[in-house]
């Protein structure tokens, strides 16, 4: 496996910002789950609890107009990229103030204003479309980069292969970010994937590929920096396989019968969120009080978004005729 030659290191400010994004993701995830439990939301929900470092470190390094294509488990990728939470909550509640007017829901959240371009429910499909956005950026000469998020299971589908080959052949400014959480639904990584490290597949496209500790802010920062620099300078795509663990099963309600109990317990014990918090304090990058205040302000933002979303009215039935095409369909 490839090793980075020159690993950029996050300074204290960067680490605090990465932590802020992680906490925003985690607090929001917690609020969604609580709201689902109380029956005030109905939807299939794919929590990414435990995987927060990945989008937090990447989003810290992205510009506002850099773009992402993500998947059903991608709410974390949006929240880490500072998507405003009100339209997000209204959307997952299926309300008219939702970013998609309630028509897309959690699996199709979109917010182009901050580069959140596509959320797909089809495994593998974030990648080919990310290429197209990157091709446009290349044609524009805009220096934008595009991130395609996906899971380990998605590395076995045809779209992955076609997208990586084309991105490399065309030197597109894309980061292929694979959150390898060890499972595709209930299937173990090693049962579906004939290679020990997905990053090894990069060599088949003449592309750099790295296996990264996706729960480690330093490692994520270093690899994401290198990949973003490479993309921005026109050298082409990078594949990052980010090893992590999914604490809450595939979809909310899924129990963990298919997981090794000890492995799961160890993963949860090593929860990256409190670990980074402790480190920030230990290394003097933030105080207990500052982090408590951060948390309080995030929780207030989330509570406000939640109230906004749940109180937004449902969309009108006319919406079935709108946005099919640019022109409204006849009644």
């Amino acid at each position, binding site marked *: 496996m490839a090793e980075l030659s020159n690993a950029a290191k996050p300074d204290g400010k960067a680490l605090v910002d990465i932590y802020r994004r992680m906490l925003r993701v985690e607090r929001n995830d917690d609020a969604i789950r609580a709201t689902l439990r109380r029956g005030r939301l*109905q*939807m*299939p929900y794919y929590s990414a609890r435990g995987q927060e470092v990945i989008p937090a470190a990447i989003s810290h390094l992205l510009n506002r107009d850099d773009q992402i294509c993500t998947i059903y488990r991608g709410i974390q990728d949006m929240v880490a990229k500072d998507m405003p939470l009100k339209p997000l909550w209204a959307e997952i509640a*299926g*309300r008219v103030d*939702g970013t*998609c007017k*309630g*028509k*897309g*829901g*959690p*699996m*199709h959240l979109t917010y182009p204003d901050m580069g959140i371009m596509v959320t*797909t*429910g*089809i*495994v*593998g499909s974030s990648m080919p479309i990310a290429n197209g956005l990157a091709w446009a950026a290349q044609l524009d000469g805009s220096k934008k980069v595009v991130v395609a998020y996906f899971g380990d*299971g*998605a590395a*076995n*589908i*045809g*779209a992955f292969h076609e997208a990586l080959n084309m991105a490399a052949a065309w030197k597109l400014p894309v980061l292929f970010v694979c959150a390898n959480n060890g499972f*595709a*639904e*209930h*299937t173990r990584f090693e*049962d*579906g*994937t004939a290679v020990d490290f997905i990053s090894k597949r990069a060599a088949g496209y003449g592309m750099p590929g790295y296996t990264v500790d996706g729960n480690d802010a330093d490692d994520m920062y270093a690899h994401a920096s290198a990949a973003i620099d490479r993309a921005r300078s026109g050298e082409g795509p990078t594949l990052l396989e980010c090893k992590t663990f999914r604490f809450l099963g595939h979809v909310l309600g899924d129990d963990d*019968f*298919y997981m090794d109990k000890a492995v799961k317990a160890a993963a949860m014990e090593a929860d990256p969120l409190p670990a980074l918090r402790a480190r920030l304090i230990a290394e003097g990058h933030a105080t207990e009080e500052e982090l408590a205040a951060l948390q309080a302000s995030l929780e207030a933002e989330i509570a406000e978004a939640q109230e906004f979303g749940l109180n937004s009215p*449902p*969309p009108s*039935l006319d*919406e*079935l*005729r709108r946005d*099919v095409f640019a022109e409204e*369909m006849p009644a």
Partner: protein
Amino acid sequence: MTEMIKMNGIQAINAAMMQAMEADPKVLVLGEDVGDREGGGVTGTMKGLSTKFGTERVKSTPISEQAIMGAAIGAAMAGYKPVAEIMMMNFTTVCMDMIVNHAAKLRFMSGGQTSVPLTIRTLTGAGWQTAGQHSDFFEGWFAHTAGIKVVAGSNPADLKGLLLSCIDDPDPCIFIEGGMTLFAPGEVAADQGPIPLGKAKVVVPGTDVTIVSWSAQVLRCQMALQGLAEAGISAELIDLRTISPWDRECVLESVAKTGRAMIVHEAVRSFGPGAEIAATINEELFGQLKKPVKRLGAPECPVPFAKVLEDAYIVQPADIVAAAVEMMG
């Protein structure tokens, strides 16, 4: 008297699989998460199979629908009877080549030298707020494809019997599991065997209007029966069960009697499967109809997420009653 067992669609499908795998060692299962270590399928329809018949015959696969279908096609050509799961019908779009250009055509293109006795099981249906990419009914596409049979049951007994027939069939069949039909309970004879493909069932006899439907929409048609009765309408409800080849005789005989026909499906109305049935009725019963054939299907838009929109997207029992009332007027 045969013992009747109360079960839901999931259990019925499971019972069919158990029976088929027991009876014929050539029956195989493959798909994502179908093994017991992975939970026996997302809805549990495959539970117990890998434990009972071994992980060689029941294989959990990578997320590789083209490879799943390819493996199933090849094994079928070699004399096995694979039952391949494509988890949701929308995911057939990633393996349409394997289904349409290969499974459906190999017998013909080889002049009958090879055959593909394959069953594709796939789940779908709006009503679960899974939105635009997890709810589509594409039966019309497959019905428009020569060389593949399209099957969809609406109740546990039919699900079991039809699945057994798909597995037995010497040609590729796509067996559609409408989400609602998996959870609706029903009575299944302990010895329920294969139900012939291509044969519809008159669910309720009637004299005023023929309603043709399948899969989950049969359940909504049944919910409409009381409203129809209250409106004084005697509806004959036909569950098509096989969409291709469909039971023209049964439908035409009924419409010849009632003079009025309505087709109710979950798929988008435009260019949908209902059009074929409507066109055929018009061809065969020209001049004998009291009213134009009505087609109730989804509006021309993707399946929306918001509950209010999703409810409006699906043809509801009240829509069926209203349409019948209008036809009687």
